């Protein structure tokens, strides 16, 4: 089977082209480093099935970060390279192209973002460029699909030209020569993007915009999340699902083993989605009724911020603070992704250059960054007692994040390089790409989280029936009551937190905890230990030894923070 690789600088549109060629939708955004692993897809060329790999972006074939290492490593098993070039930035992109052309692998070039060249006043003589490089070149627009058919049609023409230069000086001279021959610049007008860019570059303007963007995002996530819950999710469950469950309850005889597993306990003869804890009641309500609305609103906002190109600008503003935590500003991007789900957040730490940074960033994400599912449940449960309590949970997490980062910066050996990143131009996101990306993430959540939630609820029920929770609760009672001031029953929720944290928070609901106890248990649950999925990714990214270290830090931090809250609040 032919294996095609999409190779190019970061943020030139490889992922968008990949989606267009293979029909397999993957997340594409307007910032360097969206793709850190690799994604495979397939398409049919005549009778043959062709494999396409979206390779993480790289500036050179001499890798400087983990994501770039992955890229260079993958070059070894490709049969053909589609070199994706940002047409608005010919010179820098050709640096990688010339390095690629020296490898013994056929190359075809996609001159992407072709639509952008016009309003930037850049004219490129494609025929001449083709002649000079000796490989086929097709102008493309990844996000709209322009030029894709032509690109695919010309795959067979891909070739290995004779490219001669030695050393980087000669390479740059050659590039300069090519650019001079094929590119001419004409005057262009200052667009509103440029004005916005200027404003967010300005020191005061930048901070003002950041505060505005972040508070608007937070407000929007909550407003839309709450809106979906109260206008769509709750009515659907109440008017459609509850009557069905009640019928099923009657059929099952209003009690017994299967009733307990499927529907759970009836509260005052009714299904109570926060307390019944059956597979079909609470097991479905938590992921679909309580969490999904927030997943939708969070990823909608994130998708817009990503595609506008705002995140790298936030990274620059955060740089000084992040240095205090042994990181640099760009680490804010994995952190923000972690607010959706820790798994992609920790994967995204690959955009950081050193092992030390990746360890610190991943540990901080798993301790101090609550995922959207967890946040939805915290807001839902703790919010009933008043917003000040929600603020206490978030405040405690933020303070822990800062303090642990500060400590790690002074104790973890190794080096933390500085930020060096391309800031993409602002772009007006296309509605369709935003919608596609949102759907990709929502369906991912339903596919991956829903089964785990159901299994978790099932496990809880079975353990309850066997009576094993009581012995765990009794064993942990001294720590919980003395240190954290929590009733021994909360240990069950903490244990369940290993599987799914949203379900764990849900288990706190029937316990009738005081506001203070709710704050403590939510904070400890958030920090204590990553959920199973996050743990697996941590182990894969950090290795066994560092994962054990990170887990130790988490447990120590959670117990310390919980005891402090118990003393102070």
């Amino acid at each position: 089977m032919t294996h095609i690789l999409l190779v190019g600088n970061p943020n030139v549109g490889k992922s968008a082209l990949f989606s267009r060629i293979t029909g397999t939708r993957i997340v594409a955004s307007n910032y360097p480093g969206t793709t850190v692993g690799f994604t495979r897809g397939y398409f049919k060329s005549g009778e043959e099935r062709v494999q396409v790999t979206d390779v993480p972006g790289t500036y050179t074939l001499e890798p400087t970060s983990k994501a770039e290492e992955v890229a260079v490593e993958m070059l070894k098993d490709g049969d053909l390279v589609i070199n994706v070039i940002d047409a608005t930035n010919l010179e820098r992109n050709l640096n990688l192209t010339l390095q690629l052309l020296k490898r013994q692998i056929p190359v075809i070039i996609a001159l992407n973002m072709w639509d952008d060249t016009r309003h930037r006043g850049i004219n490129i003589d494609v025929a001449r460029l083709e002649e000079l490089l000796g490989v086929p070149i097709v102008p493309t627009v990844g996000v709209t699909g322009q030029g894709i058919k032509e690109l695919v049609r010309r795959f067979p023409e891909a070739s290995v030209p004779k490219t001669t230069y030695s050393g980087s000086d000669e390479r740059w001279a050659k590039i300069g020569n090519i650019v001079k021959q094929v590119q001419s610049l004409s005057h262009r007008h200052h667009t509103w993007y440029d004005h916005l860019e200027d404003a967010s570059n300005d020191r005061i303007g930048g901070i003002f915009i950041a505060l505005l963007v972040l508070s608007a995002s937070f407000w929007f996530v909550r407003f839309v999340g709450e809106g979906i819950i109260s206008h769509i999710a709750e009515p659907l469950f109440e008017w459609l699902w509850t009557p069905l469950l009640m019928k099923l309850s009657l059929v099952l005889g209003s009690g017994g083993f299967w009733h307990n597993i499927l529907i759970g306990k009836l509260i005052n003869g009714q299904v109570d989605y926060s307390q019944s804890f059956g597979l079909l009641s609470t097991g479905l309500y938590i992921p679909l009724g309580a969490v999904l609305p927030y997943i939708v609103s969070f990823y909608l906002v994130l998708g817009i911020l990503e595609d506008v190109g705002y995140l790298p600008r936030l990274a620059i503003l955060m740089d000084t603070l992040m240095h205090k935590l042994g990181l640099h500003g760009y680490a804010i991007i994995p952190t923000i992704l972690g607010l959706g789900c820790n798994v992609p957040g920790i994967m995204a730490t690959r955009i950081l250059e050193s092992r030390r940074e990746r360890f610190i960033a991943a540990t901080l994400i798993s301790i101090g960054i609550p995922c959207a599912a967890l946040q939805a449940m915290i807001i839902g449960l703790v919010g009933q007692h008043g917003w000040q309590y929600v603020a206490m949970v978030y405040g405690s997490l933020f303070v822990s994040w800062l303090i642990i980062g500060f400590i790690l910066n002074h104790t973890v050996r190794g080096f933390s390089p500085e930020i060096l990143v391309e800031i993409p131009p602002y772009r007006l996101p296309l509605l369709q790409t935003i919608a596609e990306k949102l759907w990709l993430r929502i369906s991912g959540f339903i596919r991956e989280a829903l089964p785990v939630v159901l299994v978790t609820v099932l496990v809880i029920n079975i353990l309850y029936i066997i009576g094993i929770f009581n012995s765990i609760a009794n064993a942990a009672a001294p720590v919980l009551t003395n240190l954290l001031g929590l009733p021994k029953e909360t240990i069950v929720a903490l244990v369940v937190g290993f599987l799914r944290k949203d379900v764990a928070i849900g288990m706190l609901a029937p316990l009738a905890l005081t506001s203070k106890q709710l704050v403590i248990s939510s904070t400890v649950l958030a920090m204590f230990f990553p959920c199973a999925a996050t743990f697996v990714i941590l182990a894969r990214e950090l290795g066994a030894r560092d994962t054990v270290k990170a887990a130790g830090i988490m447990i120590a931090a959670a117990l310390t923070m919980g005891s402090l809250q118990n003393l102070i609040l």
Partner: protein
Amino acid sequence: MSMHRGRQITLHQMNIGQTGTVVTILGGRRLMQRLEGLGIRPGKKVTKITSSPFHGPVTLRVNNTQIAVGFGMANRIVVQLDRYLHGDTITR
């Protein structure tokens, strides 16, 4: 004054809006390679766009792109100012 003709200063010392040509990069092979990948190399024209307080990054324009460079790196990139060399500021 930092605007003498032909004076060599670091990227960090440049004023916002000034354009200069990179003369040399004071650093190891690795740093050179990283910067070169982003198009920052001796002979290249760069325009400083912003600096940040508290040792934050410097942003500059190279060709058509904006690039953020950490404070320490910005101190190691030596440029020769364009101003007064050609009697005009070259922005690209």
